């Protein structure tokens, strides 16, 4: 399955791109995708513990099972206001 991944804030600078598309096996979890992205973009590893992950517009834990066509976003802690 293909999953579109978006990066926000300084994660864009760490990856050098705002978006990438990952091809994953069925039943891949958010955590496995995150690990795969850290292999592809090693600079993300330093932010591993503080990175927030959403699927669509909802936050999801690492054990969330992804579905074909879903959009995943990775971003640092939020700072509104």
């Amino acid at each position, binding site marked *: 399955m293909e999953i579109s991944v*978006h990066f*926000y*804030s*300084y994660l864009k600078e760490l990856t050098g791109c705002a978006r990438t598309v990952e091809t994953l096996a069925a039943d891949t979890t958010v955590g496995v995708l995150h690990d795969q992205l850290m292999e592809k973009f090693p600079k993300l590893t330093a932010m591993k513990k503080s990175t*927030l992950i*959403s699927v*669509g*517009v*909802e*936050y999801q834990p690492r054990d969330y099972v992804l579905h074909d066509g879903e959009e995943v*976003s990775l*971003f*640092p802690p*939020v*700072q*509104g*206001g």
Partner: protein
Amino acid sequence: MLNTSLVNRHLTITTEPIDEGALLCARTMSVGMGAVVYFLGVVRGNEDGKTISAIEYEAFEKMVTHQFNVLFAEMEKRWPIESVRLVHRIGVVKVNEPSLWVEVIAPHRGEAFAACQWLIDGMKRVVPIWKKPVA
């Protein structure tokens, strides 16, 4: 998230300056309401000990709208709110200019203050907006 609330909710994410006068003119409240609390967040001239000229705000807008609506719904469960209006600027906001305007209307001041504080705390926890200082 569908807004099925009877509460007056207004959320604006904008690159335009916040027009406080227009917002105050647009205020509506019923005769049962006794408290209006509003808060203005203003860009400070220093960030982490360094002088700055502005802050650039970035937002994941679709998720911002959803997460604010989740917060509004929870706030309405906790307090008897009649109205909540929130404006957040994105893009470059100069020092001394407001980046955030929030207004909560409730029957009594305790509820209005508590709800407004809770909403801003919630925003800083879950709403995907980020800031980048501009030298």
